[in-house]
């Protein structure tokens, strides 16, 4: 299939994906997914989806409705959470801050307090923790969360999402707190050049966020970014059977790999991998416009010594990620990939 032949199929896939999200959006404006013991997530999931689909033509009304629902859920501490039953957390709030960028009439008090809320989660090592040791409950009581240490300590995936949220809201990368967070991310880079995640299986989600955050903070050169893209392309190409044929199990992670590759599609190898992924994503889209889900989210120590692995059974989370990756591909004129 030529690149030209791909273009209308890509447009149609985006349109069907948005149509699926339209159907999946609840009447109160939220998307709900990831069933866990304290219930499914609406705030975090909706903020994540808005951040991924905002800017795609045709998403305007979905984004507006969800944003309106989210802004009504802001807690007294200034943040948002997994859902109303759970204390607000840094990661959910970081995604909400990114989502707020897409909406009209976002009042400054909301963003200012959310930014302050994020900084309250910064640890001594510079990283950001998901939860603070003391988080108030929705009923107004403040009590200690009896949560595992990992939930209360710095995590690269949470820190990377937070850095991006702070940067897009005008915080300077030279500001001491933000710089500490950037250094934390740099320090925790693996020898492979990637990053590993606490809350997610695989490294592609966190690698994309860390690469983007460091790039925006002027900490990575184009050679560095191309190097990361090259490693990803090599990994994907070297094991076609596990990555591209079994893509059904990997839509979420493959989409994030695609987003990282699209940060620097400078070599033929990267460009051809991008095209392969796009073809695979088009092939795997389900008739209702969604993409298949898979167990992607880790809940470490959900019970002592046990890590749960759960899927977005509603497929909203994965679908929004695939949509973002495909629409980012569409930003490039086809001649780039023809060459």
């Amino acid at each position: 299939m030529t690149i030209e032949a791909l273009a209308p199929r890509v447009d149609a896939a985006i349109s069907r994906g948005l149509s699926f999200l339209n159907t999946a959006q609840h009447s109160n404006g939220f998307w709900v997914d990831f069933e866990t013991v304290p219930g499914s997530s609406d705030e975090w999931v909706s903020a994540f989806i808005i951040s991924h689909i905002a800017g795609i033509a045709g998403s305007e009304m979905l984004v507006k409705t969800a944003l309106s629902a989210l802004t009504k859920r802001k807690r007294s501490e200034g943040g948002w959470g997994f859902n109303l039953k759970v204390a607000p957390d840094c990661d959910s709030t970081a995604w909400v801050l990114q989502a707020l960028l897409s909406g009209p009439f976002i009042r400054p008090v909301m963003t200012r307090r959310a930014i302050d809320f994020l900084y309250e989660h910064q640890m001594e090592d510079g990283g950001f923790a998901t939860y603070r040791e003391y988080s108030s409950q929705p009923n107004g009581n403040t009590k200690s969360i009896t949560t595992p240490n990992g939930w209360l300590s710095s995590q690269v995936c949470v820190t990377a999402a937070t850095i991006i949220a702070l940067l897009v809201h005008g915080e300077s990368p030279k500001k001491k707190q933000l710089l500490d967070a950037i250094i934390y991310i740099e320090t925790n880079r693996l020898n492979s050049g990637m990053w590993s995640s606490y809350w997610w299986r695989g490294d592609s989600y966190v690698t994309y966020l860390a690469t983007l955050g460091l790039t925006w903070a002027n900490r990575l050169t184009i050679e560095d970014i191309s190097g990361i893209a090259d490693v990803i392309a090599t990994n994907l190409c070297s094991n076609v059977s596990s990555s591209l044929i079994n893509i059904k199990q990997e839509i979420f992670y493959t989409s994030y790999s695609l987003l990282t590759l699209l940060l620097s599609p400078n070599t033929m190898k990267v460009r051809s991998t991008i095209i392969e992924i796009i073809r695979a994503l088009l092939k795997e889209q389900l008739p209702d416009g969604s993409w298949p889900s898979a167990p992607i989210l880790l809940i470490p120590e959900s019970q002592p010594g046990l890590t749960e692995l759960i899927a977005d059974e509603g497929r909203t989370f994965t679908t929004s990620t695939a949509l973002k990756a495909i629409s980012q591909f569409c930003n490039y004129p086809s001649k780039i990939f023809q060459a």
Partner: protein
Amino acid sequence: MDWPIPFLAEEVWLRARRCLMIGLSEHDLVPSHSRYSDYMEVQNAKGEKLCRRFEHFLSDECLLHFCSERFLGPDNKRFSQRLPITLAFGYECGYLLCQLGGGSSNGEKIEQSADCAALFNLASVLFDSLIDRAGLVNQIQTLLPRDRLFHLWSEASAAEEFLGSPELKSPNNQDLRVFAEVLAAFFKCAHCLKEVNSATICWTELWDALDGAYSAQLASVKKELTYKEANDIGRKKSVAPFIIFSILSKLTNSDIQSTIETNLAREVGELIAGVDDLVDIESDLRLGNLNRVLPNAGLLGQTKDPRAILAEVLTKNRIEVIAKDVLTHFEAILVILERNPAPLHVRNRFVEWMSMYLIDWLR
């Protein structure tokens, strides 16, 4: 006023929008939501078409950067989402000024002038972003000293030479590269218009306006300015693009004596300077940018704490003063349009364009 800073910022944000909306409503200039949405949808579609057309002005290497999320760093999302509207705004303004100036009846020439206005508007937004947010003022001054700007204006062949500048060779200066290619495209387009109307007076006016815009942009990043200086620079910076749009429209016109578009452009620029200041008070305070509503604008963050500045904005009615100024310019525009000999539907289209974009900025 001993309120917490977020509440002060909230009140400033609300008051600025309230003052402008009340003023616009009094002039019957607030469209219904559906009319506004329809209008902006059409503008967005126009902008999308311009994006596709202008892609050809950029080299493949430059496009690779321009299309990636790396471009303009954390401003990328905001910029990408606004790109079609940024282009459509310049295009529509350029197009309408041509029609109001009784310019060429040759649609192709009008479109060429409007394209030029769209490219200039994009270059201007990029320039702003590069010096305000990315802090690349020194790199810009090295890449584009005043004599190189003059050269670009005076020689049609200078654009290609400019793109070979050593400052643009570094692979890590890609944001600058995009700006340079957009600027070069603007100059190539402007030189084509010069061929339509070789009137020296218009072409010289263009240099004066470009030079003024350039100086005002660079002056706006200086930190130590008196309030009067800050005020003057803020106005010049906002007015300059519209003066340039009006000169571009004149280049399609054989009647170079016409001053109507220039006066109109100046008033539009003054109005937009005020609106810009009003809608960005909170972010300008946070980021240390020039804003006439803020006292001691050029010395922000050094002389007073944010709470004192916001309190002064509220207690001394600084928002109301600028909002009144904005509406005075709006009224002046309506008077100029009344005297304009262009058909009524063209004049109405100009008022519609302006009010729709004002509402868009308030959002």
